[in-house]
């Protein structure tokens, strides 16, 4: 035990399962949890939609809500849940010295404007001039700010007053891994005492689906659990909307505030390029695991990497729970979500129910859990969570 251990004192979660740690844990521990699916809106694709949220609970000013699209609102909301959970929300001194790392992609485009330009482009000889004319006239000026990657962090600063520092990492699932890894390293080295880290992803928007489908990554046809999509149509990803934010603190900082600690965040191992099974096995070995443990896996459903991860986990004596079967793929939020669920499991001393029929039961004591996220195209990471 060390004063500079990295501990988790706040968790903010939103997904199709609900909002907050309580609803999520309840949903994850019922016998045979079921996914919430929307099969119709984006057919032939299935998505896990957002639950009903009252944005005003975390974003009181309507003017702030109006400046954001759903991705930023969702992240600001989930960040607020995490700050509330850690007892930091509204504490000016703590927020003003709090560091922040957000993992982000881009925000939603204006589909109406895009569609109208695409349609008009069919009957014009000069598409570039058309583009200038329409974008100049039709784009809402402040939409740019709802699209900029670093403006989720910007909105969190404005709404929740977190202003110690603000950094935004980009790069799909890997951004979430780097965000957690860097956050933990800063606390462990004394560069930071308390830090807000996380991401949100809003998939219920055709432009967001397009980024996957340019590479043929989306699953089509009947829904199947994340481990069983190899033989189905499409590339294996069923995406979901959601967000996950964590408050990380040094043990000393958390104990001085008398806060409840969910779990200690141990070693984080990350990989560049496109890791294979041998590399995943090596990364798991860096976590110094011994015995049988639970793995909260962010596996995407994309065949090669999902199979490689599953084999490596099982070979390392880990029992996987693939939460994508219940939440869908949350992109940048994938790793923060995995770490959050692993921390919840450790704090409850219990495993979630099997998230798909093929998953093995987990019995025995739970004082440690592994979180994973390996990207559909590149990058990946694993982390060990243990009892505080």
């Amino acid at each position, binding site marked *: 035990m060390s004063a500079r251990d990295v501990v988790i004192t706040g968790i903010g979660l939103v997904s199709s399962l609900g909002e907050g740690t309580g609803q999520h844990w309840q949903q994850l521990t019922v016998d045979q949890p079921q996914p919430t699916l929307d099969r119709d809106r984006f057919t032939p694709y299935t998505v896990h939609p957002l639950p009903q949220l009252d944005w005003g609970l975390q974003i009181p000013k309507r003017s702030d809500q109006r400046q954001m699209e759903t991705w930023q609102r969702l992240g600001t909301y989930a960040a607020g849940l995490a700050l509330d959970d850690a007892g930091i929300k509204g504490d000016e001194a703590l927020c003003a010295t709090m560091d922040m790392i957000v993992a982000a992609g881009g925000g939603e485009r204006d589909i109406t404007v895009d569609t109208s330009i695409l349609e008009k482009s069919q009957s014009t000889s000069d*598409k570039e001039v058309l583009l*200038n004319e329409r974008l*100049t006239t039709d784009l809402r000026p402040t939409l740019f700010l709802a699209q900029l990657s670093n403006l989720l962090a910007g909105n969190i600063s404005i709404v929740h007053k977190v202003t110690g520092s603000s950094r935004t990492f980009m790069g799909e699932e890997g951004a979430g891994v780097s965000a957690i890894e860097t956050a933990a390293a800063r606390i462990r080295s004394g560069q930071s005492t308390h830090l807000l880290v996380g991401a949100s992803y809003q998939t219920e928007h055709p432009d967001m689906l397009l980024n996957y489908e340019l590479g043929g990554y989306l699953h089509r046809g009947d829904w199947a659990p994340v481990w069983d999509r190899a033989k189905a149509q499409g590339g294996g990803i069923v995406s979901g909307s959601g967000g996950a934010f964590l408050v990380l603190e040094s043990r000393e900082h958390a104990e001085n505030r008398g806060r409840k600690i969910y779990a200690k965040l141990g070693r984080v191992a990350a990989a560049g390029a496109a890791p294979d099974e041998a590399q995943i096995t090596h990364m798991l070995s860096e976590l110094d695991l011994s015995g049988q443990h639970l793995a909260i896996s962010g596996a995407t459903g994309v065949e090669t990497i999902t199979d490689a991860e599953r084999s490596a986990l099982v070979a390392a004596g880990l029992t996987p729970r693939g939460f994508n079967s219940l939440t869908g793929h949350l992109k940048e939020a994938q790793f923060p979500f995995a770490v959050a669920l692993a921390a919840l499991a450790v704090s409850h001393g219990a495993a979630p129910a099997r998230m798909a029929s093929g998953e093995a039961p987990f019995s025995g004591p739970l004082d440690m859990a592994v979180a994973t996220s390996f990207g559909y195209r590149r990058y990946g990471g694993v982390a060990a969570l243990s009892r505080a």
Partner: protein
Amino acid sequence: MTSTVDHLGRPIVAVTGLGVVTSLGVGKAENWAALTAGKSGIHPITRFPTDHLRTTISGMVDFLPSSGKGNSALTEELAAKAAEEAIAQAGLGKDFGGPLFLASPPIEMEWADRFALYSGQEDEEGYARLLTAARSRNDRALFEGSQFGYIADALSARFGTRGLPITLSTACASGATAIQLGVEAIRRGESDRALAIGADGSASAEALIRFSLLSALSTHNEAPEKASRPFSKDRDGFVLAEGGAALVLESLESARARGAKVLGILQGCGERADDFHRTRSKPDGSPAIAAVKAALEDAGLGIDGIDYVNAHGTSTPENDKMEHLSLSTVFGERIKSIPVSSNKSMIGHTLSAAGAVEAVFSFLTMQEGVLPPTINYDHPDPAIDLDVVPNVKRDADVRAILSNSFGFGGQNACLALAREPN
């Protein structure tokens, strides 16, 4: 030999390689010659038609093979060119052996590609049509061009950097943040060296229109080279530009051990987020003031320790006013005797690259003993009482520099750069 740890006992971070590309040219030599000659790289836009646009000038990089081939391709080439120069200067080979921090713009599919996808399919409308076309084309290059992690992955493979490369955005402060992340990694002892790159090749019609709709851009189209007028009374916005810069950061101990030439020291970094507004600074300037103070404190420097300020100096009415407020608050009366110039008067605003580009120019400033001017300073803003090194370069012995970067979303990042300790 002096100590290799700083005033807080942390490893001192040296710079052993620098590379840069802007509208003024490729490499340090070309850029420095133009910059000290007061030459502007701002020119009329030729990459796309300018019909219906309020701004028709920019500092785009139009002379590279990837120019005009889209945001992702040009950003990658700008980053790679700068990194090659920096790594060669550092005397390191193909296997860099430390982490990569890349500041780059958010990525989106190009309109040309959207049009092409849309034309190839006829039986559906709107985005459903794009989705079907995307699925049937399965074009890997198009896919990779839409992935935020792609450029850093490609650079990492090319230069042999270690681990999961970090791609970041803090808007117009991104380049400074990339350097800061590298400094922090070396101070933590995670690596002896790090590669920090800022690159931005994202000047598309849509990007220009977005900034234009926020009234952020200069519309002095008639004389492009005179459009960027930092600290002038008649400044009316920034000039959108492209560029790339790379810095090889290395612990001073490691640099000396391998006999590398030390080009300077990354002595301190400071940052503070602003909670006031998405595009405007808090009226009292307190976040920018706090960021400057934090950089000085991190560097162990007092206000007498800074000999020159490489300003953010965008030429927008708001930025230059707020930057003056923060500098005059931190430095007090002394600010009148500290030269403050803006490279953006010549190269425009290179956005995600700016912090890195201007850090490279700052090291050259110390090395050469020459302050690049603020050009187009014909009508001083009487409310901004600064020595902006007007219009003509000046010789000066500079030991330490403050380099400022401020961005949308309340991003404020400041770097304190110094010569190698004797």
